[in-house]
């Protein structure tokens, strides 16, 4: 009964999405998958801390995408001077309903920050959605991984007494290239994972090791360093396990997981061995 006119499932965000969709997608576009829209509201139930914004929270629908290699930005500091004031011209000139094209810049920043936090919580901390890993990291983003990789590189570089630049460059390159290669490994094993989703996951799973590296930088005792690094290594592997194993054929699980563990173990050794 209700497939002709789009009946918004949530009056706030869904109607905005659909208005734009109706304007723009007179035809079903080959690149877009329209039926994907209606199921998005159930994701509201995922316990995620979204800052309540006056505009309809464009929650899960628009993750900020990123380019083939590893990078994107920490949005916080930069956009604050750029857009803490509402961009008045856009709200007046362009249409009646607010949407992601005309939202204030500050909302974009908040949305991206909230996504980083929610992704981190989903990946690294225990939560009820771990059993369904594909759904859990649906809104991948590369901001978090970028920050963690840089942080880990900086910490290692700081801990090193000599050749600081090489340490940083090597750490960054190994982590970035390692994430890409591990993703390719899963894809070549016939697994079903999105390239950027996997990069994002592997980056977020570095969070425990980054904490471990920070503690090791401050602590001198080797025994404590070994203990701390072992704990954080186990934590990282635990975090990465469900996503990676769910992506491939069960018989090939070990083939997909072994390189991941190997990479994390070598990073752990690197952290311990840095003097």
């Amino acid at each position, binding site marked *: 009964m209700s497939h002709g006119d789009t009946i918004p499932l949530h009056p706030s965000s869904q109607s905005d999405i659909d208005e734009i969709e109706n304007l723009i997608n007179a035809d079903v576009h080959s690149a877009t998958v329209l039926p994907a829209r209606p199921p998005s509201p159930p994701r509201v139930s995922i316990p995620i801390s979204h800052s309540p914004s006056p505009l309809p929270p464009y929650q899960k629908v628009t993750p900020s995408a990123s380019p083939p290699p590893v990078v994107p930005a920490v949005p916080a500091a930069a956009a604050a001077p750029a857009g803490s004031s509402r961009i008045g011209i856009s709200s007046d000139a362009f249409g009646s309903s607010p949407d992601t094209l005309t939202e204030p810049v500050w909302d974009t920043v908040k949305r991206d920050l909230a996504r980083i936090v929610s992704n981190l919580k989903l990946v690294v901390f225990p939560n009820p959605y771990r059993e369904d890993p594909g759904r859990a990291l649906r809104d991948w983003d590369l901001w978090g991984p970028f920050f963690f990789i840089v942080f880990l590189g900086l910490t290692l570089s700081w801990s090193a007494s000599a050749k600081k630049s090489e340490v940083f460059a090597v750490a960054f390159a190994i982590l970035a290239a390692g994430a890409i290669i591990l993703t390719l490994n899963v894809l070549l094993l016939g697994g079903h994972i*999105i390239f950027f989703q996997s990069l994002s996951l592997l980056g977020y799973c570095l969070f425990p090791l980054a904490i471990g590296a920070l503690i090791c930088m401050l602590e001198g005792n080797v025994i404590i360093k070994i203990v701390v690094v072992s704990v954080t290594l186990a934590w990282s592997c635990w975090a990465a396990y469900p996503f990676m194993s769910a992506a491939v054929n069960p018989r090939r699980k070990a083939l997909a997981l072994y390189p991941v563990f190997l990479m994390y173990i070598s990073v752990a050794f690197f952290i311990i061995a840095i003097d």
Partner: protein
Amino acid sequence: MCFCLQPSGENYANPKTCFFHVLFKAAALAFYILSALFVNSFVIIFVVTVFLAALDFWVVKNVSGRILVGLRWWNEIDEQGESVWKFECLDQESLARMNKKDSWLFWWTLYLAAVSWIFLGVFSLIRFQADYLLVVGVCLSLSIANIVGFTKCRKDAKKQIQQFATKTIASQFASSLQSAFSVV
């Protein structure tokens, strides 16, 4: 840059956005070039340059793309677990009302930044500096990603405008038929 191509007459409609659009690109390039003179540590050069380039990527993608040319692109993963690239643009009248100078600046600085990074990359390749090549590689890929994304978005928008123009009458007719039938 050929200033004879610049449209004359109107002023920038969003000077603050234009400024920030250019600011981070120029800052990343300037820091990279000048740092060789002043800064000894590669780590600082790397982190600051890549950070500025990443900020620029974010600003262009999320702020100036929206405001200067009314385009937006992103990636979604749908229910089946497939990744879908989405393109969004303002409706036709708003697009037509876009400031020409703004969009000229937007596109030209985008291309110019990418070309500059290519040039710097060649430079560091000649000098066999692999670590600086890493920096250039990262910044270049960010620029190219934005160019590709917005170009696809613009082509998409043009196509949709054409389709929209021809389909308006048909869809209005169809929707009135449907509303007549939905009562049944």
